[in-house]
């Protein structure tokens, strides 16, 4: 991995982000084996994306997140990242799905801004936060992570119109374009086609990048932050289940638990691929 050409980001930091994304995959795998069924496919497709957002892009002041990230999905991955950042008790992850767990998919003011669950709510919600921040003269960006299947929801397009009508350039929507939804490929269920073109027609500034490349994501977010005047969209091209070959682009790993044989095989492959894709200075952790 080389120094990002357009960002003032050190190689060590980029390497740390790489390591973190693969460590999160391992955490998700552990949870799928030991706790309950989890959304393996989309957690693996958005591991780099969420890592770059939380560990690099979203500004923090101690335990306070100064920017907002909202999403209807990616609940377990969000919990894993917040635990990794020390903002949630790491032990809490082992209570997932159990009676009395603090990770009950409801909101946690300051950390998890909206309840997890049905899709299609987060972009409108993000627009409301962005509009409120603007009205109050407060800084802060509002990131909204969307699945590509989620774009079937009509409410997303209601929000897309609101954002552009109001010129909410403090909204940054990110689409995890892994090509799959619950029932199968997005193009088979209801052809989504060219996401950037659709949002551009709604008045958004649109970008796309390799969603598994940490330097590319860091660059893309830097460009998004600098763009003004319109709401912004990043389409991150990803692979569902990325990191474990027998899980990649497989509908059966959308949301599932796994047995011991799968767990061992997947764990071994994650370790191999993390190492194989690691940059030379990997191992320092995000700075």
């Amino acid at each position: 991995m080389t120094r990002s050409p357009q960002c003032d980001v050190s190689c060590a930091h980029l390497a740390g982000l790489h390591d973190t994304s693969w460590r999160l995959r391992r955490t998700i795998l552990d949870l799928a084996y030991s706790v309950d069924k989890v959304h393996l496919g989309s957690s693996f497709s958005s591991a780099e994306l969420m890592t770059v957002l939380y560990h690099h892009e979203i500004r923090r002041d101690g335990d306070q997140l100064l920017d907002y990230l909202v999403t209807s999905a990616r609940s377990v991955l969000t919990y894993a990242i917040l635990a990794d950042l020390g903002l949630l008790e790491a032990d809490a992850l082992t209570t997932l799905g159990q009676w009395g767990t603090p990770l009950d998919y409801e909101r946690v003011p300051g950390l998890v801004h909206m309840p997890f669950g049905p899709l299609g709510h987060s972009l409108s919600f993000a627009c409301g936060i962005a509009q409120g921040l603007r009205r109050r003269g407060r800084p802060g960006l509002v990131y909204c992570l969307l699945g590509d299947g989620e774009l079937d929801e009509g409410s997303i397009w209601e929000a897309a119109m609101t954002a552009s009508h109001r010129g909410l350039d403090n909204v940054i929507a990110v689409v995890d374009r892994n090509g799959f939804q619950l029932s199968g490929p997005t193009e088979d269920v209801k052809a989504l086609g060219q996401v950037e073109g659709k949002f551009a027609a709604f008045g958004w500034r649109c970008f796309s990048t390799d969603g598994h490349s940490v330097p590319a994501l860091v660059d893309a977010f830097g460009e998004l932050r600098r763009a003004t005047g319109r709401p912004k969209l990043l389409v991150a091209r990803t692979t569902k289940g990325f990191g474990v070959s027998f899980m990649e682009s497989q509908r059966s790993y959308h949301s599932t638990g796994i047995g011991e044989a799968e767990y061992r095989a997947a764990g071994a492959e994650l370790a191999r691929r993390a190492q194989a894709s690691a940059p030379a200075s990997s191992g320092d952790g995000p700075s």
Partner: protein
Amino acid sequence: MVTADMGPATRASRFEDEFPDDFYDVGIAEQDMVCFACGLTVAGLVPVVTTASVLLVGRPWEQVRNMADRGGYNVKLVATGCGLTNTRHSLGLTALEDLALLSGLRNFEVYSPFSAGDIAAVLARMLEREGPTYVRLGKYDVPSGVGASSGPFSPLLVEGDGRTALVTTGFLMAQARRVQQRLAADGRGIKVVNVIRVLPFPRDEMLAVLAGVDEVVVLEDHLPIGGLASHIALLLAEARLSLPFTRVGPERLDRCVGGLEENLAHHGMSETDVLARLDGGR
């Protein structure tokens, strides 16, 4: 103030005239409207969301349930033209099920005031409390009067006394008063009860009001299940109060296009109809 292309229809446009920077019209997009309002609360604003009830808690019900209620956001939903007051319009916006839709939501409080004084008291309470709130308003000649706002807020407004309790909510209080006056002219007193806070249902207050009553008649402009009558029937059953119980109200989503009195007559809710249902219809 947040609405979905209903500023003129709800008179929210008057707010827009005075406070244009605090008025947000999201266009004809009610799902967007509810979630957008929830987002405003995160930035510390207190949004009042208004449109017709069917479009406020009907079309975006899942957003009301999973965002406004589960998130416990400080949003204020004010519905207009509720119940049978949506006169001379299509059935499409006639809201006879809104109370049922909101029953069981854990964070919502639901109000259904009648007089101008009560509406003012409810709106003040709505803005004071932290959490999602729904106010059921109608299109009718709102009488002046202080009602529940005359002292500490009470979820029930009780007028008169007698062995019969005629329980109602919202604009039907006018009808209940007419029935009360007709009976008073014949020398009979009844107790008229207006339920101003419907949810959480004021069980203890209602039980106190029903003590010493021989008959309960509920007059409501809501479908039978999930409305005022079903809350009272459940209360009577759980309290093992064996009282004659009569419900006067629409049985199904059906109305004739016309004025308010014609709609009430169509659903068997005219003054004469209510009088005929007292005393078990004897």
